[in-house]
């Protein structure tokens, strides 16, 4: 679920074509109208994906989670019996969960003309685990189900955790990914106060880049062990080959080259790959001056000369920074890139920045053979996650 499309086919078309999913969003605020750039999903109709009677139970973020998960499950061809359902996990990443519900309830409670009462479902709507809960309930998945929250790295952490649970045989399959929907006035004012938001567009790695632009959405995957997928004749998109995690242990908002490089190296080791095996990187690439420069340095540290020899692009240029869903949407981009041998572009690129001297696939995507790709998320508080995806 993304501004580029509400299904995989549309998402792929938009991604490969370099579609801009960012526009100016306006909100009434204290008697005026304020505007912020954001990558919002326009024309989302929850009834297309969710039973009409269930919609009222869900915040928009959980609706995205269910919409994406239902598509993934349908596409997987799985038809689980009760025993199998108990061996199926639901492990979902989100940054803040039901933020829209929180703000609606605060308006009712605290504004001068508010009713002083909140909707009875306020608590189950706002809880961060609502995405995982509703996916589990909708699809009847009765195995381990929980939510992972680590800001911008939530989705990769969720997917990496799933990988480990599958490898150890704790579960046999899972729905995993991320969901986020917090393009609310409160969220945007919060990010504005941090002074890192761009005024109009997201320009990762570009000269004159001016910061990040928030997005929303969800992406979900059915993950299972290779032998099981092959045994049942499943349609296999790609392989999640390795996962690396680290923490910088340094700054609350500024990334660290060494921490990020360590996560990259650990991911490669876990996948049993060397830098020469990597043909594409889907970067964290938020468009902030500091992330993009630090990420460039980290890629060089971990990949050596390979870092500047392969395409490295940021899909956040197109669908913004979807926070807890970012890693999942970007994994979707990576999976499709590997499957189709196509490097998606970094759009809104104005020109080279010497601190970001990578091959960023500026503005126009291109065909490129991709045996293996890296997918990066580097979150506030120095929480780093890197997932390796290879051809099936």
């Amino acid at each position, binding site marked *: 679920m993304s501004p580029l499309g509400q299904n995989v086919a549309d998402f792929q078309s938009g991604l490969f074509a370099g579609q801009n999913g960012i526009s100016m969003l306006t909100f009434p605020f204290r008697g005026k109208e304020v505007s912020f750039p954001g990558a919002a999903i326009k024309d989302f109709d929850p009834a297309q994906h969710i039973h009409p009677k269930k919609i009222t139970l869900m915040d928009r973020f959980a609706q995205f989670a269910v919409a994406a998960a239902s598509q993934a499950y349908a596409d997987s061809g799985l038809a689980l019996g009760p025993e199998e359902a108990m061996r199926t996990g639901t492990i979902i990443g989100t940054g803040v969960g039901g933020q829209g519900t929180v703000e609606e309830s605060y308006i009712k409670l605290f504004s001068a003309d508010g009713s002083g009462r909140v909707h009875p479902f306020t608590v189950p709507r706002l809880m961060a685990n609502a995405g995982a809960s509703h996916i589990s309930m909708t699809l009847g998945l009765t195995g381990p189900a929980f939510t992972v929250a680590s800001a911008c790295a939530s989705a990769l952490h969720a997917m990496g955790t799933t990988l480990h649970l599958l490898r150890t045989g704790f579960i046999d399959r899972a729905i995993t990914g991320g969901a986020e929907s917090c393009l609310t006035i409160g969220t945007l004012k919060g990010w504005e106060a941090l*002074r890192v938001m761009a005024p109009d567009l997201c320009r990762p790695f570009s000269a004159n880049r*001016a910061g990040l632009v928030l997005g929303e959405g969800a992406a979900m995957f059915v993950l299972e062990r290779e032998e099981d997928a092959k045994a049942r004749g499943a349609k296999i998109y790609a392989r999640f080959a390795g996962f690396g995690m680290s923490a910088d242990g340094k700054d609350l908002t500024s990334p660290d080259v060494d921490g990020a490089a360590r996560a990259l190296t650990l991911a490669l080791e876990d996948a049993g790959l060397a830098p020469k095996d990597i043909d594409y990187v889907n970067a964290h690439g938020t468009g902030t001056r500091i992330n993009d420069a630090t990420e460039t340095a980290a890629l060089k540290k971990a990949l050596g000369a390979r870092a500047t020899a392969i395409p490295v692009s940021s899909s956040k240029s197109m669908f913004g920074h979807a926070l807890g869903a970012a890693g999942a949407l970007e994994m979707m981009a990576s999976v499709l890139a590997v499957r189709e041998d196509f490097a998606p572009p970094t759009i809104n690129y104005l020109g080279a920045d010497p601190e970001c001297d990578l091959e960023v696939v500026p503005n126009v995507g291109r065909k490129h053979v991709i045996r293996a790709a890296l997918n990066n998320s580097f979150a506030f508080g120095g929480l780093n996650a890197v997932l390796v995806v290879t051809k099936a």
Partner: protein
Amino acid sequence: MSQIDEVLDIVAQKSMLDRSKLVPEAKLADLGISSLDTVELLCDVEDKLGIELPFNANTSGQDLRTLGDVIAAVEKQLAAKG
């Protein structure tokens, strides 16, 4: 207390340094004020003086390096406010 005194008070609190150290040439980084501290400090100054300081950490980071830069930015907004 003048408005610039109020700014220096805020900087003194944030840096936990004596006012005597707060000279216009002093770099914020040398005063122990990180980029995150700077964002908070600017917000406090805005609240205290009722002004808005246009500052994007991605583009203005280079412009606000010294205490003198901060004071100049504040004076500019105070003048615009009239």
